[in-house]
């Protein structure tokens, strides 16, 4: 059987890839995808723990995370489209009206 640490290592790796993506990419859509990657790394952690602890709570949590992530994507894409209509860009470096 694949040991628990392997799952944790993979999910930790995926989470860090997501964090690095958020920090370095400038396209709002790609940043958003990186955040989804982080959420899926969390899901993997939950499922792995759930399996090794023989408890169902982790599975339930994953369902909630997926549902919420779906809702967030709906709102997020709508916001990005509204922004694109007004500014014709989704590059976050060019979106800087608010500062001070």
């Amino acid at each position, binding site marked *: 059987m694949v040991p628990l640490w392997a799952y*944790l290592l993979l999910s930790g790796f995926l*989470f860090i890839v*997501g964090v690095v993506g*958020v920090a370095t990419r400038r396209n*709002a859509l790609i*940043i*958003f995808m990186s*955040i989804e990657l*982080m*959420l899926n*790394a*969390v899901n993997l*952690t*939950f499922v792995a*723990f759930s399996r090794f*602890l023989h*408890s*169902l*709570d*982790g599975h*339930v*949590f994953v369902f*909630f*995370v997926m549902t*919420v992530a779906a*809702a*967030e994507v709906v*709102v*997020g894409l*709508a*916001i*990005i489209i*509204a*922004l694109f209509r*007004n*500014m014709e860009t989704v590059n*976050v470096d060019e*979106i*800087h*009206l*608010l*500062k*001070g």
Partner: protein
Amino acid sequence: MSVTGTQLDWGGMAPFLLLTATALGTLLLDLFLSPRHRVRLAYLGLTGLLITMALLVHGFGGQERVVAEMLIVDDFSRFFHLVFLLIAALTILVSVKSVEQEGTHQGEYYTLVLFATLGMMVMASAADLIMVFLGLEALSIPLYILSGFLRGDVRSNESALKYLLLGAFASAFLLYGIAFLYGAVGSTRLKSIAAHLGHGAAWENPLVFLGVGLLLVGLAFKVAAVPFHMWLPDVYEGAPTPVTAFMIAGTKAAAFSALLRVFGTALSPLPPEWIPPLWVVALLTMGVGNIAALTQQSIKRMLAYSSIAHAGYLLVAVVAGTSRGFSSILFYLVVYAFMNLGAFAVIIALARQGEESPTLSSYAGLGFRHPVLAFSMAVFMFSLAGLPPTGGFMGKFYIFSAAVEADYVGLVIIAVVCSLISVFFYLRVVVVMYMEEPREGHSSPVLSPAILVTLFLATAAILQLGLLPAGVWDLAVRSVQSFWG
């Protein structure tokens, strides 16, 4: 996890169900009303909020009820529920006019405010980390939409995008922390976590360390503690003004309610080596918030930075970690809600169409042009600065005295210095209003009854909390005792 239909405590869920029904009612009724009559949706929302408040006041002091091991309804959550409902009601009052001017999507606006309020209530009642997460998202997702509500306005778009990206980023950290805690404890129930962490050895588990650390980072993002505060000024400046008022008062109270639940049950007692980092965060939050607010010209942005500073004062009480400290947070959040919503009611009353971010200079001579507005704004500024005889003074007094009792004298001295700095930029508003000549072309605005009611309520509440704080303070003490003996 065992849930059966017959065991559900419907009485305990009643406030949540009532608010959900109101929110769905406004959404549904929006379809049948002609645009001219949609202002009635605001009154429907207000009625729902008032009935829910009456229900909570009636239940205050009653027994603790637990719904399906997920939601706790005790005096602590009742206190916070009342604060949230009050914030939502005042927000709806100050929104009516600007939402009406905006024209479209009136129903959605009120529905989203009500659903966000529901999310706050879930956070304050959370008995399980699942509920903390769900409440947080039920609060955040409507707010992402609301901050981008002016679809044609680029600033509003930008605010929504920044809020969404950083909010979702922070949620991922929070969730990762929850996942590790689950791995270490085997449950996400706050009580089980508390029982597991009760023996000090459990804290040496690296999973617990990672879990608590990431959980705290996620929560620090939500309360906008330095160094996780960068998103807040941009989001609050770009969002429509009534929405900013709602966020500034509501999300802060909700985030702190969840923070107190987590600290008070799951992480209590916190090992002493966790205190210094919190101490530093509280200090930085106060310092950065106040110093950045000094140089702001936009009044919305100034209040946004000041809200970071106020989060810092509240963190001082969290560091103190005593039951008295927690009570002072509850008291302060009530005052904080009134003074911010009041100040934003003035900003909304003075805002003219097309001018999104009013600067300080547009308040010149307000004392002569509009004595009522200027007087109430002065009261709110005095209270934000923490000067007697306002509620802001009493709030700070309770927080600082709790911290002194817990032997954090150094932190309190820094906090007092920070609030002295804040006097400068709050009173600058008063000086501009009363000592500068009014500019040409600034007509006196006609106040709508809704704004007048809000101003009256907020001013009266702040003066009352400043002069006779005992009633609310006793409630706050009793509420904290209900979940944390």
